[in-house]
């Protein structure tokens, strides 16, 4: 973001790496911040679970600017951290450059593929999870219009939107989907005011269930949806508790499992391509005491059936990122 924060960040990395000794694992959070109630927070809870179970410690850093990516990676690698886990697709380029320089260190990148012998790439089938919540949205909608609000307009978020749209149309071929992106810069992840305005705009177009895949902006979406008396769908972590009875469900991305597994496997883990989909519990939808009254048994039965079909391969959900097109939605 700035010179000042860069210095502070650099100072923090130096402080962290000062007492380098054993091969502790390290976790690097992306710009959304450690407690984003979403992606990064899920990663943190996975690492926390590992630390509690094993009684060991891990190092962590929250990035403050783009420029710190490579720096943070190198610092941790030079200090002997192993494995180094990072959250977020944006690490792709930095890791691609750094991985080769530290062949002894294992890297784990979540949400992106980096082809190097010492990198485990964990990717999620977000389109599958989004498909499931799309079915629920279509079944819960009374107006036959549902909404989608994305954060920054990047292929990954379009992948969410596309899976969701396919799910909606599978449950109700006549449904209308209103999709908006918050912006094209990283500030689109932290603009709840704009998230609220988009929500109100979608409501005025008839939407009565809105799926937010927008980081901090999503907090504004869920808030406004609850205020206006419509349903919303959370993302990444379970966000049902934020507005009990007003959040239909959350699309779960078990980032925590991926981080936990990586730290448990430790140095010398299996490298390569690791896909977390419905079949291996990597994605799913959230059910708890906060939404059990608004999810009907009928709805649950349909979703679970679709879930089983995706798991055994009889149902294919189109992945936007495979060919940059979406059969169900135009951007």
């Amino acid at each position, binding site marked *: 973001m700035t010179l000042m924060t860069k210095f502070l960040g650099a100072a923090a990395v130096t402080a962290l790496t000062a007492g380098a000794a054993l091969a502790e694992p390290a976790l690097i959070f992306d710009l959304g911040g450690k407690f984003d*109630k979403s992606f990064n927070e899920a990663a943190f809870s996975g690492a926390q679970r590992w630390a509690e179970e094993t009684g060991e410690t891990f190092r962590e850093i929250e990035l403050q600017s783009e420029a710190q990516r490579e720096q943070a990676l190198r610092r941790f690698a030079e200090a002997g951290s192993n494995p180094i886990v990072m959250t977020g697709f944006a690490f792709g380029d930095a890791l691609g450059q750094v991985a080769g320089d530290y062949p002894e260190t294992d890297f784990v990148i979540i949400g992106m593929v980096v082809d190097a012998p010492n990198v485990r790439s964990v990717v999620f089938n977000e389109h599958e999870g989004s498909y499931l919540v799309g079915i629920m949205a279509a079944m819960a909608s009374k107006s036959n219009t549902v909404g989608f609000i994305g954060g920054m307009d990047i292929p990954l978020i379009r992948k969410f939107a596309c899976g969701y749209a396919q799910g909606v149309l599978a449950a109700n071929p006549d449904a209308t989907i209103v999709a908006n992106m918050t*912006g094209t810069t990283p500030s689109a992840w932290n603009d*709840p*005011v704009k998230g609220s305005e988009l929500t109100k*705009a979608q409501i005025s177009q008839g939407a009565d269930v809105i799926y937010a895949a927008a980081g901090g902006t999503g907090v504004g979406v869920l808030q406004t949806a609850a205020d206006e008396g419509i349903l919303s769908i959370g993302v990444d972590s379970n966000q049902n508790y934020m507005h009990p009875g007003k959040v239909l469900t959350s699309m779960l991305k078990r980032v925590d499992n991926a981080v936990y597994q990586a730290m448990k496997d430790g140095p010398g883990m299996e490298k390569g391509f690791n896909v977390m989909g419905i079949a291996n519990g990597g994605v799913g939808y959230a059910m708890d005491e906060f939404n059990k009254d608004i999810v009907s048994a009928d709805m649950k039965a349909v979703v679970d059936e679709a879930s089983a079909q995706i798991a055994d391969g009889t149902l294919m959900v189109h992945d936007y990122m495979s060919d940059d097109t979406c059969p169900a939605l135009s951007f």
Partner: protein
Amino acid sequence: MDYMTLIQLLDSTVRLATPLLLACLAGLFSERAGIFDIGLDGKMLAAAFFSAAIAAMSGNVWLGLLAGIAASLALSLLHGLASITFRGNQLISGVAINFLAAGLTVLIAQDWFQQGGRTPSLIGGARFNPITLPFADTIEPMPIIGPLYAELISGHSILVYAAFAAVPLTWWLLYRTRFGLRLRAVGENPAAVDTAGVSVIGLRYAAVCICGVLCGIAGAYLSTALQAGFIKDMSAGRGYIALAALIFAKWRPWYALWATLLFGLFGALETRPDVIEALIGIKVQGQLLGALPYVMTVIILAGFVGKAIPPRAGGEPYVKER
């Protein structure tokens, strides 16, 4: 586009324009007195945090508003201290305030609430709720005027009405009072004001304090009226758009109202790509509308549409002749 869509669009315009308007008027006071202030965004952010934090802890949004104003005022005084008393560079001081606010808010929020730089969600009396103006329900069924009154004019939080009332008030204060005349003079020719025996320092401090109060209200509006809580960096650069609006408005209060409403309308249109498509028949990228305020400011600055002349002594610390 039907009438209801238009009303909803304008309603959204008003909501989005309000923080811009308050920040723009804040900048107007400061810059008219010769103190450039690019720290508007930081002050809004600090106010957004403190108003949400105090409202969350006390359950009273008015206490929150006061805390927000106090936080913004403190940063204003810091800016005043650096740029008026110590005659430092006003731009650098403003930048420093932006960084300070961005860092401090998250740090304090994490320390107080342990929710990762957020405040808890505000409920009930800890939020500014929409006000229904008298007779809104009775007038609503009437055609044309009904929705206009009930949807567009009624149903905003009290801060929105305060912001709109601040426009004529600012005009009156600047152009119809002795204080206003002196304030404008201090931004054009501080030496003349000094010769007349009026304190340049005092006037400039008064201006940055008014600026602080207005920014405080703008920040409180973001976190306690539009939203129910603080999220890091939630001002999302609105202070900078307000500065662009200030240049666009050529440092005048009524123009500031129109400029911020125009920028608010761009923001509202950005959320309704379907309306634009229906109106002009082609699909326009939302980002284009988001960039328009800046593009228009550049056009104004380049002198294509009238000329924007800043206060003559703007950015210059005043040094008494030795």
